[in-house]
């Protein structure tokens, strides 16, 4: 869907993005991660031409974006930024309607679309439709920001550290909702963050950048199990590395199937879709080394042993 081909961007003597090539597949949730100054935001802003590359090309659905008028290109991509940037003189409804109005949709269709998005982002229309941005909390503002980005139903969503300024609880909730929205809509999402937990939770694929170069582009599991360089380990956090790895694998991946001869161990069973990290936590909390596992229909699906967690 989005192909970066040897993309380079310099600001004076400083090379922000250096010869980066990779592809984001259609419907993929791709997270760009790296320390500050790694070029991740610059790379994102080149996709909607807020920043022009000095060399290389970016193709969206096969088309070189250099040949598309920036405004037309941007109306096909949602854009969400950390500081939200809602229009303070417009109501929530008018803010969400920004792109549909620019696209000249009829009034009825705009209204229906706003109602649909307020529902999707869990914004109570009675309370928020006619509210102004300054009357909203940070989390509510970013819900409106995400709704506004989705309003024109663009196939692509670009998000620049959208949840970094929110408190941990709100961030956690919005991450969960974004994951749901991605599951439901299958938008292609490019998401910039410096938070590896966020990346591991949301991404289908993680692109790690350092000093403007692409260090590794891989699934969360491969990032954890086969980090290409020290910088990848550093971003994961060396002390927590084992626990994070447990967080990306599920109980079902490692549980032993029920053999039918021995009774399952006692205690509340764990769903096979639960992360292994939760299984470890349950074992420690319950003081046991074996947990019963059930499938998504609640049927017994085997047993997970403590030893299974450390199997390579």
């Amino acid at each position, binding site marked *: 869907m989005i192909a970066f081909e040897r993309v380079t961007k310099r600001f004076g003597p400083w090379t922000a993005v250096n010869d980066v090539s990779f592809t984001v597949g259609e419907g993929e949730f791709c997270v760009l991660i790296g320390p500050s100054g790694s070029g991740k935001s610059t790379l994102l802003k080149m996709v*909607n031409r*807020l920043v022009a590359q000095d060399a290389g090309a970016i193709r969206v659905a096969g088309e070189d974006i250099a040949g598309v008028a*920036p*405004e*037309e*290109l*941007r*109306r096909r991509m949602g*854009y969400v*930024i950390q*500081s*939200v*940037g*809602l*229009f*303070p*003189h*417009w109501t929530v409804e008018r803010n969400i309607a*920004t*792109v549909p109005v*620019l696209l000249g949709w009829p009034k009825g269709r705009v209204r229906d679309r706003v109602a649909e998005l307020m529902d999707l982002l869990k914004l109570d229309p009675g309370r928020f439709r*006619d*509210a*102004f941005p*300054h*009357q909203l909390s940070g989390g509510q503002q970013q819900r409106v*920001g995400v709704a*506004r*980005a989705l309003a024109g139903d663009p196939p692509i969503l*670009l998000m620049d550290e959208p949840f970094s300024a929110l408190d941990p609880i709100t961030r956690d909730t919005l991450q969960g909702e974004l994951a749901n929205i991605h599951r439901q809509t299958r938008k292609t999402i490019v998401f910039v963050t410096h938070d590896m937990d966020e990346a591991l939770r949301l991404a289908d694929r993680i692109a790690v950048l350092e000093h403007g170069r692409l260090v590794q582009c891989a699934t969360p599991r491969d990032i954890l199990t086969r980090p290409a360089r020290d910088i990848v380990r550093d971003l994961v956090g060396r002390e927590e590395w084992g626990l994070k790895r447990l967080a990306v694998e599920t109980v079902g991946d490692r549980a032993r199937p029920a053999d039918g001869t021995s009774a399952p161990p006692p205690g509340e069973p764990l769903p096979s879709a639960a992360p292994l990290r939760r299984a470890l936590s349950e074992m420690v909390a319950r003081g046991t080394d074996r947990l019963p596992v059930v499938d998504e229909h609640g049927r017994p699906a085997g047993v997970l042993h403590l030893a299974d967690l450390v199997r390579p």
Partner: protein
Amino acid sequence: MTGGVPRQNRGRGMGRGVAVLADRLVLAVLALAALVLGMPVLKPLFAALYPALDRPLYEGDSFLALTAGHLALVGLSGLTAAIVGVAAGIAVTRPAGAEFRGLIEAVVTAGQTFPPVAVLAVAVPVMGFGPEPALIALTLYALLPIVENTIAGLEGVPDAVLESARGLGMRPAEVLVRVELPLAAPVIIAGIRTAVVINVGTAAIASTVGAKTLGLPIIVGLNGANPAYVVQGAVVVAALAVVLDAGFDRLASRLSRWRRA
């Protein structure tokens, strides 16, 4: 959102007619109308205040005609300055016009500091007597606050708002009209307000070059040692300034209503 707090307070414990009177704009308009239309009624008062004067009331022209001439001069110069000033402020805050910013600011500052009387002295020999030289002097005098406030208002629009406006696909003209100007409007209006209110006072000098304004009784009074004429002209000028000030206040608060929601 529609009913502001003051309106609710006014409604409480007061009749509707009294509530209207409590409005600054309405009061100022009533005071101005009373002065303009009722000046002849005050003749005995001025006669009592200045017993030495043969003619204690200026009767050369009606105060209505003088006020209309004054207002036309202030209005036309204010409108011209607003159009030119806002356009200049917009131009120098665009990427293409940024390099002219220093030049424009120097020119409007010169326009402000050049005394209007001196402008008249230079313009009259070229253009002759009448309102035209005064129009030029007042327009130049009004430009500085309008240009400065337009620049300040546009620069006060938060970067995040501009970034999202562009990022969502607004064209530069759409960003300007839908986002920048509405957000800068209260500051721009404040600049026009300052310029116009100052010019209500300055416009009186236009009568030295033959324009019919409220400056006429003042100048005739100064020449003829008739302080009553001076007071009559000055009081109406002041009332007119208060009316315009209250009017701009109302406009500015309407344009920033969303802030108080």
